[in-house]
């Protein structure tokens, strides 16, 4: 979810918009702390990179950290999509509309 939100946001992806995007698309409240924990893990795996941006007064002088998906991250997302599609395909309960 975090990777998809990052791809959607493009260059302007830092904590707050990422959280908003996830909340908007999933309909659930996302905790900033959890989003950052996920982003740190993704960065360790090389799926995203980050850079420090500008600071504003409203942020208490703290800089924003912008995140971007790497090529490896995009490949990972595609792979996950394929895996999910394969799992999804041919489920009888879903075909008959029971679930």
């Amino acid at each position: 979810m975090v990777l998809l939100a990052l791809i959607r946001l493009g260059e302007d992806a830092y904590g707050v918009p990422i959280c908003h995007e996830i909340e908007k698309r999933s309909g659930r409240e996302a905790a900033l702390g959890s989003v950052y924990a996920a982003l740190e893990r993704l960065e360790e795996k090389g799926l995203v990179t980050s850079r420090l941006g500008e600071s504003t007064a409203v942020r208490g002088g703290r800089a924003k950290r912008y995140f971007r998906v790497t090529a490896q991250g995009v490949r990972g997302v595609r792979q996950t999509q394929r895996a999910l599609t394969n799992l999804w395909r041919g489920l009888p309960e879903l075909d008959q509309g029971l679930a």
Partner: protein
Amino acid sequence: MIFRRPPALANWLLDRLGCTRRNPALAGDLLEEFRSGRSAAWYWRQTLVVVANGISNSGAGLRPYLLALSAAYVAQFVVTLALWSRNSPHALHVSGWTKFGVWLLMQFVYWGYESLVNQLVVGTRSPNLTQMYCAVEGDAPRSTIVALAAYQSFSLGLASYCLCALIFPRFSLPGLVAAEMTWFVLWVFAPALKRPPALPAETVEDEQPWLAIPQSEPVLAVILPSGRTITLERQSLARSVFVAADEDLIKVVFGHRRSLELLRRVIWLGGRRSLSYIQERAESLSLAELAALIEETARTKSIIEAGYYPNRRESFRQRLKLWFCGDSA
């Protein structure tokens, strides 16, 4: 425009347990969201998540260290239990003052012995092993630090038991277990989890940092002992601080934990990177003048509190509100 302040207690927790000192971007995001209209309850929820993540991360990083401490303490408990079952060492049957003397003597002996061991193993008498383990300071290998921590855990527990056995009459098994648990949590495990210091601040790529402070930013009001209020305007304050933004001044300012957020922010913005650029434009207060003003500001805490809450009870109520709810929207 005066920015809302988030609950101070939540901020303190974030700083101490949530590792936001190591991740200022997260702290900034939380503040930005709060100031865009989120409630204090939202801030508290987010804080708890960040704190939970912070503790979990610290625990994961320190796992071998904590495991060694715990294993050594369990081994110590087995030895202690064996001693307890043999009623050894025997309690001293002497006066209370003599017992106090023994207690004091044992404290000194143990302290001296521990210091000697520490000095021999890691080269310092009172090391902060958590910091050393995190490779923040010192150059002893991690295996040595883990071994020393385990040894300290073992010896501390055993020495504490022996001291209690000498001083107090024989105590029950539940009493022994309760005391062991208390020692473990208070003296061994809790200090072991103590957060290592923050990493060096990251540099921000920003050529004109003070421009990030909006024109509507509140001015810094300072109440002098004479009752006169001095108002430092945004730009002159920023320039003043930037001119004098050397380490001494920053120490002076950060020494006053109650200094206004604006001042902290301005000083933060005036990092070393932009110093030369700002110096060209600067003409304002001297370092000594600015330090004196900061001193006064810290004493009066804030103009809002000084001006609106002269009543002590009201002031206390407001302070409690700031701790738990922050400023109202």
